[in-house]
Structures are given as C-alpha cells and as structure tokens.
C-alpha cells in the first residue's frame, strides 16, 4: 500500500516537472534567498535556541510542579491528612489540563503579567508551559506510583519502614522505571508545543520560519525547513528514550 502511494507521489512530482534542471535551479535560488542570503539561517538558529531554552526551562518547572502535586495526591490517598492541599492539587490539574495551552499562554502574558514589560517574554512562556506541563507530569507520576502493586507498600510497612521511607526506598525506584519513558514523551510533546510562543511575540523556531516568510514572501520552503528541524530533534530524543528504556529494564526478563 505504502509503496503504491510513494510511487504515485513520485510520478506526480515527475509529471509536474520537479526533476527538471529548471526546477532544481529554481529550488536552489529560493533556497539561497530563504536561508543563505544575509545569513538568514541565523534567524532559524536563534529561533531554535529560543525553542530549546523554553523547552528546557519548562521541563524543569514541569518536573518540580508535577512531583509536588503527585506526592500530595498519592500521600493523601495513602492516609496522610492533607485535604486542602489535595483539593488544590486536584483543581490545579483539572484547570490546567482542561484548558488549551495556547489560551493559558495568552492569559499569562496579557492578563496576569500585563504590567511586566521589562521581563523577558520567554520567562513568561517558560512559566506558562512549565505549569501546564506540571499538570500532565503529575498524572504521569501518580499513574506510575499507582501501578506498583499495593502489596509492596504493605510489605514495606509491615517490615517497620515509615510511610515516607517505604515510598522513597521501595515504591519510587520501581515507579521511576515505568514513568521515565512517559515523562520523556511529555517533553517531546512540550518541545512541539512551544511552537505557539509566537503568539506572545517570541521568535521561536516556528516564528523564525514565519519571519523568513515575511522577508522572502516564499511560503513553503521556510516551513518545511522548520518542520525538518523539529522532526530531527524529536527523532533524536525518541532514540534516546528507547536507549533509556532499555537501560532501565536491564536485569529484567
């Protein structure tokens, strides 16, 4: 099936004169216009920097927030008496998962931080993406912890460990193994999600492509280039996750 589609696409390209010398020189001319002339590729490099910076920052906030929230929720279920904190965590997760990241980003920038003008907008984006991601990470952590058989906790407690240390030494190490791949997938999603940062005026990778479009008035090449850069990053990260998964499941049969 796939190769039929592929062959058909190739035929269409051939028919439309894609493989002629003129088409190639035109392609090269446009490529020069879009990326080489006046060092325009630097706009993409700067955009990539911004994308990576926001993703890294949001990742850190996401993990910290997610960890705190999941600990609150799991501890409450495990009998620790923190009803108010638990209610807060529940509401936080409901609200931040229940509204689109883009809407949240706009609210952070134009409503909550309306008067913060000297603040680098990237920090606002990091906060918005990080807090949003935290809600998802919390659910990932909670799922990971709850996937461990309750018998483990009972066994640890009956051996005289406190709730805290049975969590730390028995449950969490096992939960981590289940959680890490999902966590990385969340950050791959986050990397792509930062592409909406252009809405609050950040020149991230996507916006850099749009800025080149506005310069050269060419539509397809800058966007395809941006897509390729995202794809390469995601593929490399996915490979890393695979490797990590193998490493984590070493000693398992």
């Amino acid at each position: 099936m796939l190769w039929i589609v592929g062959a058909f696409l190739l035929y269409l390209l051939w028919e439309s004169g894609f493989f002629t010398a003129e088409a190639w020189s035109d392609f090269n001319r446009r490529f020069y216009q879009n990326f080489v002339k006046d060092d325009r590729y630097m706009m993409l490099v700067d955009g990539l920097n911004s994308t990576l910076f926001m993703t890294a920052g949001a990742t850190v906030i996401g993990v910290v927030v997610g960890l705190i929230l999941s600990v609150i929720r799991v501890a409450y279920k495990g009998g620790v008496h923190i009803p108010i904190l638990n209610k807060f965590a529940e509401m936080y997760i409901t609200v931040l998962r229940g509204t689109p990241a883009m809407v949240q980003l706009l609210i952070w920038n134009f409503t909550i931080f309306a008067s913060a003008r000297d603040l680098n907008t990237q920090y606002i984006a990091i906060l918005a993406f990080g807090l949003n991601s935290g809600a998802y990470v919390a659910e990932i952590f909670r799922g990971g912890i709850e996937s461990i058989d309750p018998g483990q906790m009972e066994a640890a407690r009956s051996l005289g460990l406190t709730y805290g240390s049975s969590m730390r030494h028995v449950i969490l190490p096992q939960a981590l193994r289940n959680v890490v791949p999902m966590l990385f997938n969340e950050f791959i999603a986050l990397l792509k999600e930062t592409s909406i940062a252009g809405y609050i005026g950040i020149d991230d990778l996507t916006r850099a492509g749009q800025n080149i479009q506005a310069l050269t008035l060419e539509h397809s090449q800058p966007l395809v280039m941006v897509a390729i850069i995202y794809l390469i990053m995601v593929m490399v990260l996915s490979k890393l996750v695979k490797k990590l998964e193998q490493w984590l499941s070493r000693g398992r049969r």
Partner: protein
Amino acid sequence: MKKFFALLLVLALCSCAFADGEKLKDTDQLKTERLAAQRGTVGQLIAEDLLGDKKAELLTTYEKYVDAVAALRQGKIRAVIMDEMPAKRFVNEVDGLAIMEKPLTEESYAIGFKKGNTELVSQVNKILSEMKADGTLAAIMAKYIDGDYSSVKPADIDFNKGAKGGKLYVGTEAGFAPYELKIGNGFIGIDVEMCAHIAKKLGKELAIINMNFDSLPTAVSTGKVDMICAGITVTDERKENMDFSDNYVTGAKQVALIRADDYEK
C-alpha cells in the same frame, strides 16, 4: 477504507479541474467570491462589508499575509484584501499576481494608544507635527517608497539605546513591509524609523515588541506596550476601544490582490 481515500482523491482532482469560471474584471464581482484577509486588519472589515451576510461562508482570515497569498496562489480563495504597499511587494517578488486597478477604499494610518492615555497622545502628536513640518517624515517615507530599501540595515536605525528616560514599548507586526519588517535580529521600516525618532524626542529608548496583528489592541489596552504602530488604519470601531494619534499616512489604498491569469483588465 481504501475506497474512501480513492473517493477523496477523485473529489480533490475534480475540484481542481472545475475551479473558477469567469475572470475578474471589476471589484463588484468580489461580492460573491471567496476572499481572504489578515486577521484583525482593515482588509478584513472591508471584505466583511463586501460580502455582507455571506461573509461566514466566503471569508477566510489568516494570521499572516504570506499564508493568505499562498491560499490565493493555490486557488483556495479568489482575492486577498490588503494594503496597497505590501500588495505591490507581493506582485514584484512573487510570480503570477496582480492588483485590481480600482482601489476598494482609501484609509489613513495612525499610532494607537490605550484609551485615555491623553498625555502620551499629545506628546506624540506634537512630535509628529514637527516631523511633518521639518520634512523628517517625508524623508523616511521617501527612503522606503521611492527607493530600494533592501540596503537599509537594522543597525542604521538609532534606537537611542541606554536612554535615561527608560523605554518606549511599541507593539508591531513585522510582516508588513515597507512599514515594518524583521531582518535578522532587528527591525526596519517606515513605522520603525518613525517610532525611533519619536522615542528619541521623548528621551526614551525604543523597544519594539513583535506580535501578531490581532494581538496588538489587547497589548496596548492591557499596558503591555505604550503604543502600537503597524500601519494601523483609523476606523470608528477602533476609536471606541483605543485612542489614535494624528494620521501620519493618508490615502493608503486598500486593494484586491488576485492571480494575474484571473484578471481581465
């Protein structure tokens, strides 16, 4: 499933084959055609007026002009309603486009402020009238409109860096040459140079905040930026929500950008 895709493919091919009948001659024909505009621009308002109650069906708004023009070239829409100057740039740089000779409207551009910020408005108006009187404004316009502005470098524009009076935050959408355009890390354009001059006169450093056009009114009314300057047309509706400076451009034509092979002069 395969049959479904085959059907889809056939439909797609058919829609290519049966596109467009009669060529465009007069702007009146646009009243029943699929039109596009950049979201939040006056082009959108004009298209809405043209289409009347058919606007929900026939009008598509895009975030960027480049997107609207791509849709035009692909035949998804029949015309893009936009300002003449940027439209001319598209005609010059992209193959197969034309501007319909008869303009739709003529508009004036002004700088937008938060409603009630009369102090800054009067300061800027004073500077603008000085710029008009001593020819500074005309010189900036001439640099971009008459000449080839590809030689203008962002570094040549004096942003009055490190000024004692703080920063003047100006919101813009830098995809609207020759009024504003992002090059590398910097900005050029008529609006940018004009704002740089205004900032200097105010004793402030110019800080350009580049955002989407439809975010500009929000940005200025929430105080994210002090003023917005992006070839903004003065309309009565907009006057209700923000204050405007005096016009710095008058007679800016709104035109229909169409495919050259779709135009019968």
